Structures are given as structure tokens and as C-alpha cells.
């Protein structure tokens, strides 16, 4: 996902990622078997699994989901910070624009004083 970018001073809204993209990008680093394309393959892959192994795998997956929750919370905290930063950028942009308008008016007034 691209970060907020400046285009001629105005911050641009970052492209929206889908829930699937976000989920996969986080889960891939924790437990690749739990990415969205791998989950449907599980049944066939582990069809001969013993109950003990199944329980071990379940424990591994449960931990992975817990870790996912933690990392997702961190991801959302970062996004919050980006939104706040974006908001400040937008306000500054508007202030600069308004200030530019004022400067033009001042110049116009000054130059009218200068003409005989």
C-alpha cells in the first residue's frame, strides 16, 4: 500500500487495500498455511492426520490467530497515525492556499498605491 503522497502540495488519499490483502500480508508472516489460498487445501492435505496431530495443529493455528490479532491491532494503530498526519497535511495545504490569496491581494493593494 502506498503511503500518503504529496502532489503539488496537496496530500493524496492512499489507495484502499482490501481486507483479503491485509489479512494475507499479515498472516503470511505468521503461519503461511492460514493464508486465504491455503486454507481450502487443508482438508485434503491433512485427511490422514491422527487426532493427536490434529489437536497439535489446532493449537498451532490458535496461536497464529492470536498473533494475527495482535499484529492487526498494531497495523490499525499505524493507520490511525497516518490519518492524523494526513489531516494535518490537508489543513496546512488549505492554510497555504488561503495565505497565497491574501498575499496576492496585498500586492495588488501595494501596487495601486505605487501608481500615480
Amino acid at each position, binding site marked *: *500500500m*502506498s503511503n500518503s*503522497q504529496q*502532489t*503539488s502540495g*496537496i*496530500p*493524496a*488519499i492512499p*489507495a*484502499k*487495500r*482490501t*481486507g*483479503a490483502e*491485509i*489479512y494475507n500480508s499479515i*498472516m*503470511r508472516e505468521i503461519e*503461511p498455511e*492460514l493464508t*486465504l489460498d491455503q*486454507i*481450502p487445501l*487443508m482438508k485434503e492435505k*491433512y485427511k490422514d492426520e491422527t*487426532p493427536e*496431530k*490434529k*489437536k*497439535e*495443529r*489446532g*493449537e498451532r*493455528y*490458535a496461536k497464529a*490467530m*492470536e498473533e*494475527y*490479532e*495482535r499484529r*492487526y*491491532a498494531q497495523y*490499525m*494503530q499505524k*493507520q*490511525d497515525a497516518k*490519518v*492524523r498526519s*494526513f*489531516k494535518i497535511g490537508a*489543513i496546512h*495545504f*488549505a*492554510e497555504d*492556499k*488561503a495565505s497565497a*490569496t*491574501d498575499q496576492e*491581494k496585498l500586492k495588488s493593494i501595494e501596487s495601486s498605491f505605487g501608481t500615480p
Partner: protein
Amino acid sequence: MLFHSKFTIEKERRPVFVHGAPAAAPASGEAGPAVPKTPELTEKQKEIQNQIDAIRQGNPDATQELANFQVQQADEDNSQLQERYKSALISAANAYFAELVLFGDGEDHLATVNEAFAPAGIVFELGADEKLTIGGEAVASGGEKARALTDAEQQMIDEAFSTNPKSKVAAERLMASMTAGSPDLAVAHGFFENFNKKSPQEKQAILTKDPAFQKFLSEIPVGQQEFVKQLRQTIAEATEGESAELSDEEKEDILDGARQELEKFDASKATEIDKNIMLARMQLRGIDTGNPEEIFAKPPVLRAFEGSPMERGFNKIMGLIGYILLSIQKMKDQMKGKTGAEVPAGQPAAGAEAPAPGQDVLRQKMKEEMKTKKGDRLLSDKGAQKTTLEGEITILQTEVDELKDKEDEEDKVAFEHKNGELQKKQQEVAQLTQEITMLQEMKTTAENQKNVLNGGKDALISYLDRPDARVRVPGGMKIYDGLKKMVFIVNDSFELSIANETGGPIDRTALGDLSGAITFRMGTGVDYFAINDQAVLKQPGELQAVFRQLLDGFKTDVKADEPPRPAAPPAAPTVPPVTA
């Protein structure tokens, strides 16, 4: 794990996980999402916890449901984030608008605000409460940001929509969002082709009669339906109040502008795509392009496009879409060397790809670059660089086209310069494409290796999980302990590395013990776990086979060590039934 202060932890229950910290309360003026109420949060957390418990109890198949829930949650959260971004822009625009109303000159303050915010791909409208709201699609999807228009593009749109500022804004937004490779472009392209298949009578019916419009919508894909609905609505609003027919003066203005542009164009020397681009420009000006031969005749025979305001506006927009699509196509064709466009002497042929370095050299170059920047970041940056260059190429291509057949010496010099710049950027894009492909390949290869080796490691651990197996296999305990303390990972430079079981730096002493035990079993004297200072494996290719051999060896050891089964007792003699 995060513990939410509102929940008590009971001994027999697992801790509840917080699905993100509660959203900060929106600042004044920001229309952010409401902070989730406690009961709703509790329900969600309960649902997640129930699913995790089910998975833990040996029902790993429940992961699909939980994954779907998490995907949905991420979708909702990110939609809220987008709304917050839009809300921030709306607040800034309203602040600027208020300044203009109080202190600005002129009357069209809305146009001034829209002009200022145009590079962000935003168009504002004035609501009934005299506050600005967003009128159109604000975000360029798929990572492509809306770009600023070039002077030439702006002039083209200014001339085409000189009598209708609202249509002009819609056209500007459309042009800025349709960058090469963007999903918006793909949607517009699909719609453009579907609409142009219709006869002139069908097109007129679609634009003026609702049943025909609804029938057309049902024939096209969903993505195009939204696009054309929005387009139709925008044009209807923009052309509301326009006179039902063009006045003579308006017609004359349209024809004059078109004649001036056509004077500089020699159709006999132009390629097919150049002629089509010129027809699109004529359509954008409001010319009826039903008879191209008449348009390209010397002198040209021109007619203004007649019809209702809606039809005229739509026709111009179709010209604009056609112009954008054809320009991008021309640029792509030139990169492939298909157009046969003339090349100034001394310059490489248009479309010539950057000389491809050997794959090894390219791989080495990427490794060097990843010493100073993480692989994922490098990929993302190169992608963004390529996007920017492609946008610049589109702009340059337009400028080169305009200068191509000029006779003036100054124009010829400008053409040489711009054409050289264009080809240089095309080569840069070709180089970036190769680098991006190489980086993706390096990442995928490392990820695949990691998955295979972790799978092999887990299979060995699973087998040695049985205490009797660990005892029976020579070196089994050491190998089991060592494997449990390590994991294969892909580092920031897309290299296969070793980490400890929690993903932190590997304990090299423990790794040395493991490696020694395995080398001893294999009897080869090779250190299969040799790593460099950054814990990157030196010979990852051999490990997969090693793991397989180890597992086979373990099974053999366990079987050989099993006590012999006692001989089956002799079958008891059968006693014949006693008969009376």
C-alpha cells in the same frame, strides 16, 4: 496478546483479544467513525474467542470461518479509514472555501477550490447547507494516484468544454484518473468498446431513453455499470440548463477550432493510430466523426455533433475516453517497436528495451540495493517509480505527437529533445520492469524454500515427538531439541535465513549442536546449517533432501529397534459337535 481493561480474566478462560485499540474520538470538524460501543465490541470479541477456542480444541477446519470474519473486519476498518481521509479533505476544503467567500475575489469560489484540490483527484460540490461535499470518486484505486494534467491536456479540455465548467471538471477528473495500468482505465476501456459496438440509433436511444439505457446496463459487467451510471448522471447534471440546440455561433466556434487543429495534420502521412487519435480529438471538440474521410479531406468537411445537451456532452466524453485510450495504446506500441515511427539519427529505436543484463548480474544488483533498503520497500518504491514514469511517458508522448510534423526550426529542436527524453524514460521503465520481476522472483523462491524446509523440519519433529522414537533414534534427542529451537524465515533481503523459534536471532551454539548431530548421522562431514553473519543459509538447496533422508533413517532405526513380536500361539483344535 492484548488484554482489554474491560474484561476480567477467568482461570479457565483464555484471555480475550482486542481487535485493535478503540478508535480515537474524532476531532471536532472531522466526520470520523463513531467509537465502537462496548456491547458491540464484546460481541465481536466473543465471536473471535469462540472461534479460536474451537480451533484449539482440535477443529482446525474452523479457521476458514475465522479468517473470513477477519477479512470482513479488515474491509470494514479500512472503509472507515477511507472515510476519515475524505473527511479530512472535506474539512480542509471547507476552511479554504470559507476564506474565499469572506475575502476572495471573483464569484466562482467552488471552481477555485476544485482547481486547488484537482491534483488529489477530488471534485467538491456545494450542498444545500452551503458546505462542500465530495462530488466524485476521490481515490484512485489499485495504488494509482490521480495525476496533474499537462498544459496541453488542460488546454484541450478547456477548449472542448469552454461553455460548460461542470462538464469540464468531470472531464478533468476522468483524464486525471485514467493513468496507464489503472483499474479505472480498464473499466473505461471495457465500457468504451461495448458502447461503440452499438449503431448510432442504438447509442442515441441509450442516451435518451431509459428502457434502452437499462437494457444496455444489463448487458455490461458490474464494474462498467457503475462507471456508466456515474458518467451519465454527471453529464446530465453538468448539461442541465443548456440550450436544447446549438446556436449558429456555437456551431461556428466548434468548427473554427477544429479547422485550426486539422490544418497542421496531414492524414496522408499519418499512421492509423494517429488518425484515430485525431478523430478522438475532433469528437472531443464536438465534431460529428461519422465520416472520417470528409474530416481528413483538404479542405476538411466538418459538421458539429447535433443532439440533446446530454447527447452532446456524452459524445465529447466518449471522445475524451477514446483519446486517452489511444494515446496509451500508441505509447505501448512504440515501446514494442510496432508503430515504425521515425527516429532521429543517433537515437535508439523507439520501443527498444534496455539491454538486459545477465540474470546473475541483475540478481547481484538487487542484492546490493537490498543492503540499504528492505526488499518489500524496494519493490514498492520501484513500482511507484514505474507508475510515475509511465504517467510522464504518456504526457511526453502527447507533446512529441504535437511537435512531430512541425516545420518551424524551434519546434524541430524541441521535438528532438522531447523524443530523446521519451525514449530515455521508456528504457528506464523497461529496466525497472526487469528489476521488479527479479525481486518478485527472489522473494517467491525464498518463500517457497522456507515453506518446504519448515514443512520438512515439522515432519521430523512430529516423528520424534514420540518419546520412544527419540530414544531409539541415535542422536534423536539432540536433533529433536535443536529443531524445536529454530525456524526458517525469509529476511528483509529475500534470503533464506535461520531464526530461533520466536523469530528472534538464532542461538548459534544450539544451532551448532543440531548441525553436528545431523552431520554425524548423514556421515558426509558437511555442515548443512552453515550460515553467515546475518544467519543466511549458505547451502539451502541441500537441506530438503537431508530432511527426507533423515526421516527415512529415523523410521528404519525405530523399526530395527522394535522388540520381535512373540510367535502366535498354535491354533486350538476344534472340537467336533457332539451328536446325539
